[in-house]
């Protein structure tokens, strides 16, 4: 099953209440598959093709404000359009899931895979001090698993979560085990789980207001502090990563998403040459596994950060290891995917046998 199709199955099986989207390559299969599966006939899930990405994210905002489990998906230019809404969702402390099957930019760019939206995803993206929980799948199975994980984390912390995928995991097919169909929550269950939600003052309860507006600075500061405390809690409890052969390695490669798999192949090729490489694959890009990278880096001779961009995650890697060892970047731009051989060459030329600057 293709990654994008798998997302559609996963969101239905999670028991989500709504999906709102607008077509854009390379993720249109999400909406197409949902329309084909007609979940409104089975689970009662709402699927709607909105008039724009802007409308879609605001539908997500409305749905989330009413306590429902809702998501949208898009690709880089569309995600840029959604940033205003994402900022509102974060500021209003609402759970929601956003999928970015990212492509090469800037501008209209290309439709080929890219990881150039790392900064946008992990540093906020829209205006104001906020973060999304960002999950980076490297397999189609993780595309599926992160739908459930993303919703669970979003509801647990009342904050939006993003799956930052790329065209490789979106378009590739591989073996995938779908979760069992979960029932959608009943309206009563939604009301119980989300007493803050706007879905009518049933039983004459006090009115609920979802708003991110507060003109009084002292109160706005308190709201910001509450958000920051939540982010600190998420950093403490939700950091996820994978390590492959880091213990006995002399060098590290840090890479996320599909590129981590190319790096893993490069590690296998390196082993044939007697070069011992370990892989750290951040799974949550925010919160970034700073401590894990620092720990894995202990005693290593150097680190290569491999990304499909001009050098974004490398900043977080450098913050993790400071200047204890050389940290170099290898990236391809514009939708080009490097081969494992290219990654190995970069490791050899930049880290193992760096040419001295003439």
């Amino acid at each position, binding site marked *: 099953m293709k990654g994008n199709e798998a997302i559609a199955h996963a969101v239905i099986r999670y028991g989500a209440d709504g999906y*709102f989207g607008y077509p854009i390559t390379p993720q249109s299969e999400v909406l197409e598959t949902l329309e084909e599966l007609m979940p409104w006939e089975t689970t009662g899930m*709402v699927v709607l093709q*909105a008039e724009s990405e802007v409308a879609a994210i605001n539908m997500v*905002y409305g749905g989330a*404000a009413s306590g429902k489990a809702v998501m949208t998906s898009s690709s880089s230019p569309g995600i840029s359009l959604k940033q205003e809404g994402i900022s509102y969702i974060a500021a*209003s402390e609402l759970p929601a899931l956003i999928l970015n099957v990212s492509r090469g930019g800037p501008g209209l760019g290309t439709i080929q895979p890219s990881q150039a939206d790392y900064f946008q995803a992990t540093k906020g993206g829209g205006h104001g001090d906020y973060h999304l929980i960002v999950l980076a799948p490297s397999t189609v199975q993780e595309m599926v698993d992160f739908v459930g994980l993303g919703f669970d984390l979003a509801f647990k912390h009342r904050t939006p979560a993003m799956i930052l995928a790329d065209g490789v995991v979106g378009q590739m097919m591989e073996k995938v085990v779908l979760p069992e169909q979960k029932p959608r929550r009943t309206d009563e269950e939604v009301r119980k789980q989300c007493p803050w939600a706007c879905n*009518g003052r049933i039983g004459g309860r006090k009115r609920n207001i979802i*708003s991110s507006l507060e003109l009084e600075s002292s109160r706005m500061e308190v709201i910001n502090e509450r958000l920051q405390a939540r982010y600190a809690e998420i950093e403490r409890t939700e950091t996820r990563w994978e390590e492959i052969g880091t213990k006995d390695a002399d060098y590290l490669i840090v890479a996320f998403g599909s590129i981590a798999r190319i790096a893993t192949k490069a590690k296998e090729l390196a082993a044939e040459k007697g070069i011992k490489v370990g892989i750290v694959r951040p799974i949550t890009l925010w919160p970034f596994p700073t401590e894990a990278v620092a720990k894995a880096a202990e005693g290593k001779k150097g680190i290569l950060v491999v990304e499909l961009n001009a050098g974004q995650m490398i900043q977080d890697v450098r913050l993790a290891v400071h200047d204890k060892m050389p940290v170099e970047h290898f990236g391809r731009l514009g939708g080009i995917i490097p081969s494992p051989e290219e990654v190995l060459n970069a490791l050899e030329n930049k880290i193992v046998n760096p040419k001295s600057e003439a």
Partner: protein
Amino acid sequence: MNLCDTMELEEIIREENKVYAVPELLDQSVHMHYCPGCSHGVVHKLISEVIAELGITDHTVGVSPVGCAVFAYNYIDVDWVEAAHGRAPAVATALNRLWPENVVFTYQGDGDMSAIGTAESIHAANRGENIVMVFVNNAIYGMTGGQMAPTTLIGQKTATTPYGRRVDLNGHPLEITNLMPLLDGTCYVTRQSVHTPAAARKTKACLKKAFENAIAKRGTSVVEVVATCNSGWKMSPEKANEWMAEHMFKVYPLGDLKDTTKEQ
């Protein structure tokens, strides 16, 4: 002779003597921020009365705009979601589709409805979302200090048309409500005002019809209220009412533009 000389206060405050009451849904614990003479307060009151009279308080959700009515959620005692500027119809779409038994209405100004949110407004109406869109058109941006709105009249002075709106520079007034009847998703489109007691009573009846349409899932109802902004227009409330009747109604004539409930 003064009534109070002959009657005890308790005798006066009796149900049978009551000629006016603040609607129960209008929250008296907060101070309204609207300028004296502004039309928004009247529209709020009418909506509050309609919701209470239809008995839908416990399953009505409002979507407030960005603009002067941004704080509407502080005044009318139902659930409210505050939307980003122009996005109220998209927010309302999800609120209603995910809770089809709920009654959802947007409250939008001229910036929200006819400038930044034109796409959302047109498309929600075109999809025939079972919502009520209340559109308060005062031909100016009040909240940000009196700049031009798409509905600003030709020649009208605003902070961004200090010498009066010119067609060659600023285009024509956008009569967005006139577009709504063309969309098959709308069931009811009307343009009213609240500058006299009679006009307010009429607007209330229109709002009631619109909310009834939402309950019956007949499609989208649009109720435009041509309104004054005496502060932005730099006029007394009374003068603003006169100016509106004289100039605004020519461009935005009052009356029903579409009513499919009549045809049935």
